[in-house]
């Protein structure tokens, strides 16, 4: 499940981050020490960090768009 969730998060980041999406995700994941057994809710702080990154890269309007997509992915129940 985390693998699938992570893939979907990276896919959601890709429109803004392009080639950097996977690296940016891995960087944030390491920073927050998210391990193998992480539950979907554990990814919410990571989503907040990604929102901050999006804001730095493209401003609040774009950050909000990506953030909304990411929150929907993390909160979606299987």
């Amino acid at each position, binding site marked *: 499940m985390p693998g699938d969730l992570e893939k979907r998060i990276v896919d959601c980041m*890709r*429109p*803004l*981050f*392009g*080639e*950097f999406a*996977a*690296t*940016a995700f891995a*960087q944030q994941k390491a920073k927050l020490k998210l391990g193998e057994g992480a539950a979907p809710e554990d990814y919410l702080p990571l989503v907040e960090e990604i929102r901050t*990154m999006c804001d*730095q*890269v*493209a*401003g609040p*309007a*774009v950050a909000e*768009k990506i953030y909304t997509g990411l929150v929907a992915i993390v909160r979606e129940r299987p």
Partner: protein
Amino acid sequence: MIENVEELKPAHPPIPRIRSYVKNLDAQMEGGIPEGSIVLVCGRPGSMKSSLTYSMLHMQAVKEGRRSVYITLEQGRASLGRHLNHIGLQPDSTDKVAIVDLSALRKSMGDKAPGENVNWLQAIVDQVGSYKDLLGCEILAMDSMSALYSLHEFDNPRRELFHFFEGMRDLGLTVFLISEMYDPEKDIFARYEVEDFLADGVIHLKVDRSEGQSNLYLGVVKMRETRHNRNYFPLIVDPEGFEVVTD
């Protein structure tokens, strides 16, 4: 009574154009830049390439509601924003121009982070395609070609740049590529001297530093599908915006 409606149609329908909103300039090129063109905006350091280009995107957003993306590969978003505010353009006053700061990503992740063999020219074309979908933009500016070249390792510049320009063209956007000129003696508009052939238009900003003064001139060197004036006009910028002096 009109017998044949076909007779009323002009031989060629008018070409949709993007107005520059540089005062007096659009009148020198049949009303503006043909939509879908790829235009090099060239000049030496300090010739206001970035400011002029951003101004065109900003005015298109404010006056016509067109969305655009300004990709900066070297100057940070905050620094660019401060500079634009200083010359009277307020990037925060519209949400229709997205300034995408890829320099921030380069800084935090390193240029080689995504992989050893990234084709940066293709990656940027793909990225712009994503921005078109994500942001619904019609106009793109990329600042600068030199910064892009510093990322990409060329084997055959002529061939690779041909595919880069064609990839950009296929996206159907009007594209401004900012190009830095280095040789003070010659008008070489871009590093590989092929970009001006591949582009549909070339706008040259020239700084004349003589007699203790520094004056700026703008010339439309090339604009396909357009009868344009080839003169260089003094370019001024004031709180009202950019203006070329034509009389």
